């Protein structure tokens, strides 16, 4: 794959992908580029900020309130879990329980702990409970990533 870059002043950031044939690699690349544009709007300390999907570690619903967690910060999100469900198609976020979405790009390991609960360890050492029935969705994302 040849990578070229050039500065074009007074123009928005533009990515042009040229390919001899549209195949899975191209499809994967385009999805990754499009995912860079997906972000969520969260609130912290009265300020509204935009957070890239790649910066989100996990999203959790606590007492019907939704929180976005980055490596070290927490943001309040004003949407619903079904809004998130619709927005995360083709991203690295996946539902891991009824109340939580995890970004698999920050996953370090999944472990079966003593009381036979499943636990996901993230690269910031946060631990999340994973429901067994969502393991196949996590595998699906990795298969797509590793294509």
């Amino acid at each position, binding site marked *: 794959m040849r990578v070229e870059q050039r500065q074009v002043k007074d123009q928005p950031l533009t990515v042009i992908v040229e390919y001899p044939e549209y195949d899975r690699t191209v499809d994967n690349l385009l999805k990754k580029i499009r995912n860079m544009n997906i972000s969520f709007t969260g609130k912290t300390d009265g300020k509204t900020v935009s957070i890239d999907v790649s910066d989100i570690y996990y999203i959790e619903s606590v007492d019907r309130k939704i929180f976005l967690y980055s490596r070290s910060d927490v943001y309040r999100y004003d949407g619903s879990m079904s809004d998130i469900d619709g927005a995360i198609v083709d991203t690295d976020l996946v539902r891991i329980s009824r109340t939580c979405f995890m970004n698999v790009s920050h996953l370090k390991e999944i472990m079966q702990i003593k*009381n036979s*609960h499943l636990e996901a360890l993230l690269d910031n050492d946060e631990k999340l409970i994973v429901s067994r029935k969502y393991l*196949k969705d996590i595998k699906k994302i990795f298969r797509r990533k590793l294509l």
Partner: protein
Amino acid sequence: MRRVLRDTCILAALMILTVFSFSIAGVGLTDEIKLVFQLFGLALILSVTNYVFDEITQLSMLAGYIVKYFVVTGIVIVFGFIVGWFFPSNFWMAFIYVGVIAAIIYALDSVKTENDIDEINEMVKRSNKEEVRFKSLGQRRGWKVLLVLLAAMVILCAASAAGYFGITGEYKNYFLDGLAVTGPAAVILTAVLISYLAVYFARSKNNPK
């Protein structure tokens, strides 16, 4: 393989339903046909219960299976009384039937979950370009679960056989029922354990520990 087995079961179920539905027109609603439809009815109720249970609870795997065991047994007993499978003296057999099936499903689910976790952890390592290390048998959990359940099933099977051959009278048949349930369960668990170990040793030859 799993998909082929699942599709085979679905196809067999559809064939049974179709054949028996046509048979009603020819021979009427015989006891056998009634039993088949009752079993399908019970399977539908249990599937819906299982789905609802998984949606509303977040229990650990073992706790989930224990709670489901009592819920499902309760449903089977109530259903069995309604359709006339059980009498007041032998309803407790439902605990054994459901228990044996639950033990087999739990064993298979444990192995599947362990495989899923290993596969995900391998994929995490590959996507981070880290070396993938193969887990030794001592670090694995699936075969231990299978072995414990197999031992329990063999003990129950031996107790049923001893009871059947050791006593006379009306309770003899209960031990025969016990033998008919625990015997095949022990065979299934042995087959799963052998295939688990066979897959492990085949994979361990090609992977560094």
